[in-house]
């Protein structure tokens, strides 16, 4: 974890998919950047939305809540949202909260896109 937290969000749009890559720390004062990117992605209604978590070193419950909201929105329009590459601590959080049972987790973005 960095001394001063930062969060940026990369977005890659394909024909049938959007991949969102948050980079840094989705802490209580920064998670809204992730929330905004997820809202925009859902408005595009891609068949597959992948959240690549490889470069996310921390997420608070507010950030997890954003993922849940996006998951529900994507499911509502008939799409699929998956998670890829979570770091070990975030994978543990997804297991502890049982969100891993709600959102499929893949070991790579490629696997997540292929599964979509």
């Amino acid at each position, binding site marked *: 974890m960095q*001394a001063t937290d930062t969060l940026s969000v990369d977005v890659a749009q394909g024909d049938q998919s959007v991949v969102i890559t948050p980079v840094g720390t989705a802490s*209580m*004062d920064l998670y809204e950047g992730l929330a905004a990117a997820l809202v925009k992605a859902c408005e595009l209604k891609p068949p597959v939305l992948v959240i690549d978590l490889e470069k996310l070193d921390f997420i608070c*419950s507010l950030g997890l*809540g*954003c993922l*849940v909201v996006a998951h*529900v929105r994507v499911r509502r329009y008939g799409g699929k949202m998956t998670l890829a590459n979570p770091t070990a601590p975030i994978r543990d959080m997804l297991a502890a*909260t049982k*969100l891993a049972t709600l959102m499929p987790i893949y070991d790579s973005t490629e696997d997540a896109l292929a599964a979509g």
Partner: protein
Amino acid sequence: MTQPDSEHIRDDRYRAIRVKSTLEDAKLPEMEILADVRRHRFCEEAEFAIKLALEEAMTNAVKHGNCNDASKQITVYFFVDDERAEIIVCDEGCGFEPGGVPDPTENDRLTLPNGRGIMLMRAYMDEVEYRCNGREVCLVKLNKR
């Protein structure tokens, strides 16, 4: 620095930080507390746990305890030594009954956006104790080097 309000935390070991009740200001104690945690050589997993639990306690204090009222304050008392980190987060709200908070891991609650804070604190800390009718939460992490 402020003096502890509560009888049970009038203890020289504790330091206190009082902040305005916003999510931005509530972040301020974290850097100082985590610096102490690193200084006392807690492992990375413990540091992650303390950061997470502190964020959840502060978020609850801002949103639920102080009801997003930025004129209210949050006071954090803490001490860290080689054995343990202890953090007490106090809000100025009306309190609540922690036992009445539903389990967010139940199937019918998984798709709700919030309600995971207390569960995460309990999952990641060694002790979580609510006091003063829920206006204070004491978080303890043991140093298991």
